C-alpha cells in the first residue's frame, strides 16, 4: 500500500508546496501565525498527516501496514528516509546562518556599552562648568546695578535740557526764519513749542519766551497776511501762505472773505471795462482807469487783465457783440474760473488735518464762493444782456449766434468747476431770452420789410397807372405796359421778395439750432424755440400779419375814401389768394423741415391760416370792387346831380362821362384780367348788344310807356314793373364776389348802375333829359354787357334807369330807337 500516498510523500524541496510547508512550519515554531491557519487546523486533526501537529506515528504505521503492500511499504520507507535526510540538511543550514548573526549582534551591544560610559563623564564636566559661569554672571550684575540707574537718569536730563534749549532758542530761531522768510519752518517750530509754553506759562522765564514768540509770530502772521493781500506771489506760495495762516489760527472765514474781496476787486475791474464799452459816450470822460490799474500783470489769477484795460483806447466805436463777448469771456469769465479754481484749491479741496478738520471749512468756503460767483455773474449777465439788447440790426445773425455760443460755451467751465452753481443755467436763460428777442426783432423786421415792399409797389403802381390812363385816353383801350412793370410782374416780384426775405430770416434763425452751437441741444432750442418761437412766433405771426394788414387796408380806406390805390388792393388780394392756395403750406413745410419741429404744444394748423388768408383775399377783392364801383359811381352821380335835366338840349351825342365809364371799366377789366382768371359767364349770342338792346328799347319800352299816357290807368306801370321784378332775382349790390374777373366786373358794374338808378330817381327830367338818359343807357348797354357774368343784369338795371327817368319826366316822349343807335354808333 505505499502507492496510495504519492502526493503526501513528495519531497519538500522538489515542489513549491513542500517548501512552503517548511516555511510555515518554521513560522509555527517561532509563534508566528499565518494566513491559512484554519485549513491547517482542518488537516492537522488528521492523525495520519505526517506534517500535522496531531501526527500519531502508531496510527500512521498501522494504517500503512493495513493499506500498503510490501513493495509499497518499501518504497515508502525509502522515500521517508530521503525526506528525513533533506530535512536534516535544511536544518543545519538554517542554524548556521542564524548563529553568525547572533554573534555580530552581541559584539555591537558590547561596544555601545563602552561608549555611553565615556559620554557620561563629559556631561558631568559640562554641568560643572555651567554652574561656575552662572555664579560669575550673577556676581557681575550685582556690581553694575547702581551705575546703570545713574546713566538712565542722566540721559533723561539731557533730553530735557535739549528741549529747554530749543525753547530758549526759539525766539531767535523764529526771528532768523522771519529774516530768511522761511515761514513754514517758523510755523512748525512754533507749533511744536506752543503747547509747552502754554503749559508752563506760569513760570516767568517761559512766559517771557512765550511772549517773545507771540510777538514774532504776530509779526510773521502780519507778513503772511501782507503777502496774501498783495497776492503777488505764485499760486503755490499763496496756497502755502493760506495754509500757514490757517495753522496760525487765522479764522478761515476771514481768509475766504479777504481772498474773495481781493478777487472781486480785480473781477470788478473787468466788469467795469465791459461796462465802459457799453456806454461809449461817458467812457472817455470818466477815464475810469484807476480801479482797473490796481491789478498788475503779475497776478496769476487774471493774467490777461492788465493788457486790456486801457481807458484811452476807445474800444466802443467798432466793437461788435462778438468782440464784446470775447472780451467778457477772456477777461471776466476766465478770471472768474481761475479765482474759483484757486479758491477751491486753497479752501475746499485741501486735505484737512488736525483741529482744522473740525472747523468744517469747505462747507463754509463753498457757501461763500457760491454767493461770490452768483453776485458777480449776475452783474456780468446784466452787462451781457444790455449788450445783447443793443443788438438791433438784423443783418447778420451769425455774429450774435457765435457770440451767444461763445458766451454759453465759456460758462460751461463754471459748471465743471462749480457743479451746483446756478450761473450756467442763468446763462442759458439769457441765451434763450436773446433768441426770443431775436425772433421778435425778425418778425418786426419782416413786417417793416413787408410795409416797405408795399410802399415800393405803391410807387411802382403810381407810374403805370398814368401810363394806363394815357393809353386808354388816347383811344387804345389796351394798356401799354412796356416801360413800367405790369401787375403780374409786381405781384411776382413782391411775392418773391417776401418769400426770399422770409427764407433768409429762417436761415438766420436756423443758426441758433446749428449742431456746432453748444446751446442748440438745450431743450428750449430743440422744442419750444422751433415750434413756438420760429413757427408760431415768426412764420405764423408774419402770415397773420400779412392778412391782418390786408384787412386794415380795407377798413381804413373805407372811411377815408380810398387812400389805397385800387390796384394795390387787387394785387394784395391775389397775393393772399396765392398764399391760401400754395404759399402758406410751402412756407410751413419749409419751416417744419428746416427746424424739424416736434409739436409738443398745439400749433396753428395750415388750414386755419389758409382760411384766414382766403378771408383776407375775399375782403380785399370785395373792397376792390367797392372802391372801383365807387369811383365810377361818383362820376355817374356827379353827372346826374349837377345837370339841369329839365332844361337840357336835345341829345346829339353820348355824354363824355359815359365814355369815361366805359373806358374805366375796360381798364379795370384789363387790370383784373392780369391777375385773375376769366370766370364763367352765361352764354349769350354773338351780337348781344344789338339784340338785347333792340328788345329792351323798342318793344318793351313801348309797351311800358304806352299805358302811362292814359291817365285812367295809372296802376299799369307799377304793375308791369312789379311783374317784371317778380320774375327776376333780387340783386344784392354790394355782395361778395368770386375770385374771377367776370364776377369782379359784375360787382363793379352793379354798384355803378345802381348808383345811376338812385340818382336818377331824385331828379326831374325834361323831354330831352329823358332822351339823353336813353342815349347814355344805350351806349352803356353796347359796351358793358361783355364784362358781366349775366348780361340780363345789365339789361335789367339799365331798364330800371330809363324807366325811372321816364317816371321822373315832365314830358315823357322817348327818342326813336334808330336815332339813339345812330348817335351811339357815332360815338
Amino acid at each position, binding site marked *: 500500500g505505499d502507492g496510495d500516498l504519492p502526493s503526501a510523500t513528495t519531497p519538500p524541496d522538489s515542489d513549491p508546496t513542500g517548501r512552503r510547508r517548511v516555511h510555515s512550519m518554521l513560522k509555527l515554531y517561532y509563534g508566528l501565525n499565518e494566513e491559512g491557519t484554519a485549513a491547517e487546523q482542518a488537516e492537522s486533526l488528521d492523525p495520519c498527516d505526517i506534517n500535522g501537529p496531531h501526527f500519531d506515528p502508531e496510527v500512521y504505521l498501522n494504517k500503512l501496514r493495513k493499506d500498503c503492500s510490501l513493495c509499497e511499504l518499501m518504497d515508502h520507507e525509502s522515500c521517508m528516509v530521503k525526506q528525513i535526510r533533506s530535512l536534516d540538511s535544511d536544518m543545519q543550514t538554517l542554524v548556521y546562518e542564524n548563529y553568525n548573526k547572533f554573534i555580530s549582534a552581541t559584539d555591537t551591544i558590547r561596544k555601545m556599552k563602552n561608549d555611553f560610559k565615556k559620554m557620561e563623564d563629559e556631561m558631568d564636566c559640562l554641568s560643572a562648568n555651567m554652574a561656575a559661569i552662572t555664579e560669575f554672571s550673577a556676581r557681575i550684575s550685582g556690581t553694575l546695578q547702581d551705575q546703570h540707574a545713574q546713566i538712565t537718569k542722566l540721559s533723561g536730563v539731557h533730553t530735557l535740557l535739549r528741549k529747554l534749549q530749543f525753547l530758549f532758542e526759539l525766539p531767535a530761531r523764529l526771528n532768523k526764519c522771519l529774516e530768511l522768510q522761511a515761514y513754514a519752518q517758523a510755523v512748525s517750530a512754533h507749533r511744536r513749542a506752543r503747547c509747552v509754553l502754554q503749559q508752563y506759562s506760569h513760570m516767568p522765564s517761559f512766559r517771557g519766551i512765550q511772549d517773545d514768540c507771540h510777538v514774532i509770530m504776530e509779526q510773521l502772521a502780519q507778513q503772511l497776511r501782507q503777502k496774501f493781500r498783495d497776492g503777488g506771489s505764485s499760486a503755490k506760495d499763496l496756497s502755502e501762505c493760506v495754509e500757514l495762516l490757517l495753522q496760525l489760527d487765522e479764522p478761515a472765514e476771514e481768509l475766504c472773505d479777504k481772498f474773495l474781496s481781493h478777487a472781486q476787486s480785480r473781477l470788478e475791474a473787468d466788469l467795469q471795462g465791459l461796462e465802459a464799452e457799453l456806454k461809449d459816450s461817458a467812457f472817455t470822460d470818466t477815464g475810469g482807469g484807476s480801479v482797473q490799474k490796481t491789478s498788475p500783470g503779475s497776478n496769476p489769477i487774471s493774467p490777461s487783465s492788465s493788457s486790456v484795460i486801457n481807458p484811452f483806447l476807445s474800444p466802443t466805436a467798432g466793437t461788435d457783440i462778438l468782440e464784446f463777448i470775447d472780451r467778457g469771456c477772456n477777461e471776466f469769465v476766465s478770471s472768474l474760473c481761475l479765482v474759483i479754481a484757486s479758491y477751491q484749491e486753497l479752501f475746499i479741496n485741501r486735505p484737512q488735518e488736525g483741529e482744522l478738520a473740525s472747523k468744517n471749512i469747505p462747507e463754509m468756503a463753498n457757501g461763500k464762493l457760491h454767493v461770490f460767483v452768483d453776485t458777480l455773474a449776475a452783474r456780468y449777465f446784466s452787462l451781457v444782456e444790455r449788450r445783447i439788447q443793443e443788438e438791433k440790426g438784423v443783418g447778420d445773425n451769425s455774429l450774435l449766434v457765435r457770440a451767444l455760443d461763445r458766451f454759453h460755451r465759456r460758462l460751461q467751465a463754471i459748471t465743471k468747476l462749480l457743479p451746483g452753481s446756478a450761473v450756467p443755467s442763468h446763462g442759458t436763460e439769457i441765451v434763450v431770452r436773446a433768441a426770443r428777442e431775436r425772433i421778435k426783432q425778425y418778425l418786426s423786421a419782416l413786417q417793416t420789410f413787408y410795409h416797405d415792399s408795399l410802399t415800393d409797389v405803391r410807387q411802382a403802381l403810381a407810374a403805370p397807372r398814368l401810363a394806363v390812363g394815357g393809353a386808354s385816353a388816347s383811344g387804345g383801350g389796351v394798356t401799354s405796359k412796356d416801360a413800367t412793370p405790369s401787375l403780374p410782374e409786381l405781384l411776382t416780384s413782391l411775392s418773391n421778395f417776401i418769400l426770399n426775405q422770409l427764407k433768409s430770416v429762417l436761415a438766420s434763425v436756423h443758426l441758433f439750432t446749428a449742431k456746432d452751437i453748444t446751446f442748440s441741444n438745450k431743450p428750449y432750442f430743440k422744442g419750444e424755440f422751433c415750434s413756438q418761437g420760429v413757427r408760431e412766433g415768426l412764420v405764423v405771426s408774419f402770415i397773420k400779419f400779412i392778412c391782418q394788414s390786408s384787412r386794415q387796408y380795407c377798413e381804413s380806406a*373805407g*372811411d*377815408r*375814401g380810398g387812400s389805397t390805390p385800387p390796384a394795390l388792393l387787387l394785387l394784395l388780394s391775389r397775393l393772399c389768394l396765392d398764399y391760401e392756395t400754395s404759399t402758406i403750406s410751402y412756407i410751413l413745410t419749409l419751416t417744419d423741415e428746416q427746424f424739424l419741429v416736434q409739436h409738443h404744444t398745439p400749433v396753428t394748423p395750415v388750414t386755419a391760416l389758409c382760411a384766414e388768408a382766403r378771408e383776407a383775399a375775399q375782403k380785399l377783392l370785395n373792397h376792390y370792387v367797392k372802391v372801383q364801383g*365807387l369811383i365810377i359811381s361818383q362820376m355817374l352821380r356827379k353827372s346826374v346831380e349837377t345837370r339841369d335835366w*329839365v*332844361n337840357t338840349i336835345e341829345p346829339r351825342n353820348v355824354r363824355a362821362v359815359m365814355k369815361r365809364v366805359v373806358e374805366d371799366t375796360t381798364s379795370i377789366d384789363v387790370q383784373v384780367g392780369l391777375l385773375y382768371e376769366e370766370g364763367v359767364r352765361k352764354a349769350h349770342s354773338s351780337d348781344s348788344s344789338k339784340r338785347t338792346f333792340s328788345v329792351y328799347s323798342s318793344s318793351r319800352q313801348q309797351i311800358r310807356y304806352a299805358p*302811362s299816357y292814359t*291817365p285812367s290807368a*295809372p*296802376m299799369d306801370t*307799377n304793375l308791369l*314793373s*312789379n311783374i317784371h*321784378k*317778380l320774375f327776376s332775382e*333780387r340783386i*344784392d*349790390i*354790394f*355782395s361778395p364776389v368770386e375770385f374771377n374777373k367776370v364776377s369782379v366786373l359784375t360787382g363793379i358794374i352793379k354798384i355803378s348802375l*345802381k348808383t345811376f338808378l*338812385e340818382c336818377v*330817381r331824385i331828379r*326831374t327830367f*325834361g323831354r330831352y333829359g329823358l332822351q339823353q338818359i336813353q342815349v347814355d343807357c344805350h351806349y352803356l348797354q353796347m359796351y358793358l354787357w361783355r364784362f358781366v357774368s349775366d348780361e340780363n343784369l345789365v339789361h335789367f338795371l339799365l331798364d330800371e334807369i330809363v324807366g325811372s327817368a321816364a*317816371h*321822373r*319826366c*315832365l314830358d315823357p316822349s322817348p327818342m326813336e330807337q334808330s336815332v339813339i343807335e345812330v348817335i351811339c354808333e357815332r360815338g
Partner: protein
Amino acid sequence: MEDDAPVIYGLEFQARALTAQTAETDAIRFVVGTQSLKFDNQIHIIDFDDENNMINKSVLLHDAGEIWHISGSPADKAVLTTCYSKTSESRVLTCAAVWRMPPEWESGSHESPDDSSNNPQTLELLCHLDNTTHGSVACVLWEPMGDGKRVISLAENHVLLWDLQESSTKATISSSATLEGKGQLKFTAGKWSPHHNSTQLATANDTAIRGWDLRSMSQIYCIESAHGQLVRDLDFNPNKQYYLASCGDDCKVKFWDVRHINEPVKCLEEHSHWVWSVRYNHSHDQLLLTGSSDSRVILSNMVSISSEPFGHLVDDDELSDNEESQQEDKGKEPLRDSIIATYEEHEDSVYAVEWSAADPWLFASLSYDGRLVINRVPRALKYRILL
C-alpha cells in the same frame, strides 16, 4: 307763438314820404305822400286795425306837387307839413307848406271807403314856409313834444327856424343859420333833438354831421366824414341824450356819442346798398329800424348801447331770492347786439321806415314802388324786453 304776417298796402303811385301821426296815441296811423309828376299827388292816411289785422285808408288830395317829405305836428294830429316840388317856368323847386287835414276825413273814410278814391277831399293849406330866397327845402322838422308852434326847415345850406302863429296860418322866420364853406353845400337830412329842452339840432350834408345850438344858431359840433359817402338820415336816441344814429351811402349805420366824435360808438354794416332811413324805437331804444335801397328793412337789437343795456330793470325789485335772479340772468344773456329780423317784403328801394306813434311794437316801411308794409317786432323779443 307765430308772429302775425306783415300787412301790405299798395299805393298807385311811387312814394318816398312816410310819417307816423305823431300826435295820435290811440290809433295806429301812418301818413304817406306820393310822388307823381303826371297826376295829382295824394296823401294816404293809413289806419291799422291791430285786432283784425286790417288796414283802413283815407286819401286826401295834395295838388301842390309831388311830395318828398312829410311830417306830422306833435300837438295837433290834423296838422302836417310837406315838402313838395313845384315846377314853374322849367324850374323845379321844392317848397314846404303847413296843411290841415279836413275835419271830415276820418268819418268820411269810414262811411264810404270806396268813394274816397273817386272823390277825394283836399288838404287845407295853412301857410307856406316861404323859401324863395333860400332854395329847395330838404325837410321840415317839428319841435319834438312841442306845442306845434315851431318848425325848422332845411333849405339848401340854410337852417330856418319858423314860428307858426295864428293857428299855424302865418309862419315867420324867428332865426336862421347858414352853412358856409367851399362848394355847393346842401343839407340832406336833419333831426331836432328831443333832449336839452329841444335846443339842439343835428343836420347832415354830404359826409358830415353837424350839431347846432338853436338858441345861438351856431354850430356846436361837426363830425367830418361821418360816413364814407353821403349821409342819408339821422335819428336821436330818445333816451340817451348824446347818442345819435346815422346812415348813408356807404351801406353803414353808425352810432355816435356826440361828446366823442372821433370814432363812432358802434357801426353796423348789414345792408348791401345805401341806407336811406334810420329810426330808434320811441320807447325801447335798443330797437333800431333801417331801410335801404337793397329793398330790405332790418330790425336790429342794439342792447349794448341802449339805455337798457341789461334789459328792463323795473323787475329787479320783485326778485327776492337768488334762484330767480339767476334765471333772470340766464334769460338776459342772449340779449346781445344782433339783427332781429330782415324784412324782405319790398321789391324796390325802401326810402322810409317809421315806428308807430301809438304802438311801440309796430312799424311801417315804404318802398319806391308805393308798397307800404306794416310789421311787428317779433313776439318773443317783445316779451323778453317787457318781462
